[in-house]
């Protein structure tokens, strides 16, 4: 069984993101980039399925600028077998990414597609679901546990009230939640081996997709800075302020 995993290049989660001075966008110049953490969980899950003998090949795909190949290499170092880079300029919207991934799905015919539930830059939480619709596959989103059972897939999802268990017919789409697994570190020998793994480069035209833009970003602004706190004199003053200023109690 072949697994396809999508990874996205985003600002490293340790970086404190800042808005550009002109408010047009976030500052990406000289900022450390990394695999989106949810995508890393997706890679880890696929690699574990391969180690368990359930999956025979793990193909990792990234849609983005040329620099996204760094993240594909990281996924290869984590244990994926080969990479596909769909080279796109700028920042395509979730629907466009889903269409491009659909093109890759058509070509690769994976039984299982694993994506992060969302990327920490756009926070859209759309691509996996859209891909499910376009590829006409069942989907288990926000997965905290998955188990392949013959030609079906059991997915435990984290929902508001607790856990929901689904049974999906393969091929299927899974999007990962935080607790699905803890990704490993890529070891030095595996980083070296990853350099030799195949990485195919393709583009929207080859996949028969026209990338369009439907949304325009008008501006980016940092959240307002928090004002300094005060010390209250007594409980009465605290209650008064909570009631009349903060209006959190009535």
């Amino acid at each position, binding site marked *: 069984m072949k697994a396809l995993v999508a990874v996205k290049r985003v600002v490293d989660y340790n970086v404190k993101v800042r808005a550009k001075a002109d408010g047009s966008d976030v500052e990406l110049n000289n900022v450390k980039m990394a695999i989106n953490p949810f995508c890393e969980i997706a890679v880890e899950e696929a690699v574990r399925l391969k180690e368990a003998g359930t999956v025979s090949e793990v193909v990792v795909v990234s849609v983005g600028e040329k620099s996204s190949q*760094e993240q594909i*290499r*990281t996924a290869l170092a984590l244990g994926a077998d080969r990479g596909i880079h769909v080279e796109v300029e700028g920042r395509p919207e979730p629907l466009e990414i889903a269409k491009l991934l659909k093109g890759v799905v058509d070509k690769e015919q994976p039984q299982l597609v694993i994506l992060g539930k969302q990327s920490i830059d756009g926070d859209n939480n759309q691509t996996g679901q859209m891909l499910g619709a376009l590829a006409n596959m069942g989907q288990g989103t926000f997965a905290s546990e998955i188990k392949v059972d013959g030609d079906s897939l059991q997915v435990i999802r984290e929902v508001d009230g607790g856990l929901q268990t689904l049974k999906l017919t393969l091929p299927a789409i899974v999007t990962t939640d935080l607790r699905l697994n803890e990704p490993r*570190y*890529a*070891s*030095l020998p595996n*980083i070296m081996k990853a*350099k030799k793994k195949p990485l195919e480069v393709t583009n929207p035209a080859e996949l028969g997709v026209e990338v369009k833009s439907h949304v325009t970003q008008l501006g980016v602004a940092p959240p307002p800075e928090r004002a300094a706190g005060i010390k209250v004199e007594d409980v009465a003053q605290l209650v008064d302020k909570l009631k009349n200023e903060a209006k959190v109690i009535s």
Partner: protein
Amino acid sequence: MSLDFDSAQLPNPNLTDLHHAWREQLRRFIDVEIMPYADDWDEAGEIPIGLWPKAAEVGLLGLSYPEVYGGTPGDVWLGQITAEELGRVGAGGINASLMVHNIGLPPIINWGSQTMKDEIAPPILRGEAWISLGITEPGGGSDVANLQTTAVRDGDDYVVNGSKTYITGGMRANWVSTAVRTGGEGAGGVSMLLIPTDAEGFSRTPLNRKQGWWASDTATLYFDNVRVPATQLIGEENQGFRVIMTNFNSERMGMAIHMEAAARVCMEEAVSWARERKTFGKRLGDHQVIRHKIAMMKQKINATQAYIRVCNESIERGEPNPADIALLKVQASEVMEFCAREAMQVLGGLGFMRGSRTERIYREVRVNAIGGGSEEIMRDLASRQYGL
């Protein structure tokens, strides 16, 4: 001001995607597996035994060793990145203990018998066994050519008598690559012998009241008629001095890189505090006297980084210059000392309290300025090498 550990590093065109990827993964490993526990381990005086197999798994222990023994051959830049990232922890004792095989094992790999390599290298690189290097003696340290521990041939064995001190990792070691006197006086009578620590007549005591490097185990070793098969000889008899000397270049490079990283940590903490702390109505960093301290730290750190790069480029070309490396070690310990001092001045009372990396680094200056060849010995060695 944005002088943090990363932005304070000069560009190095030798680094490729592979090197950056290793730094990224290694930093992740360190930030999860080491950094949060560094204070506790240092106070406890040891690192947990489980850290070695984890470090082996990520490729840290095996770096630069042959694949047949479970290692990963790599260039000097991978080594530099490793030393820098471990230096960033700001707890040299953890590094000294975790990576002590890097001084004990190379003599075996470079000069030992095949049987010896096959037996000891794989478990050490898996993090399941330990090796130390035994050179310094209670009667003398820097004067290696005049060491007093003897190994006298008796049939198929050597009988070893004497002692070694300040031996890093000595309490945990399963083997010690030990410098012994097998011949006459001077450098020409020195051999290297691999001594198993379960041999009869071997004993050891911990040296656990140190100024710094608390997480590192340090020991005095005693040899009382310890019988070691002659096959345990590392290299040829009376050729040990050469083995010791080849080992020193890489040890000194590793220490220099570690010290530069430690200096950068001190600057990072000083800068961060100088931006935050307000005195006399303005930030510390807005006072000229503080700004100049930081600029001087950066100036000296820059020079050290450039010097490290030059030495590493020479090593990568196969033309190491022992004199330049010896003086690099002096450069690095002086800069570490300067930055630790100046950062402490900037941190003020905060720096005097245990808990900051700078405070600990301040206590690790001397072991770096003395271990692996003292500043005085390094200058002497360099002047001789330069033909003065």
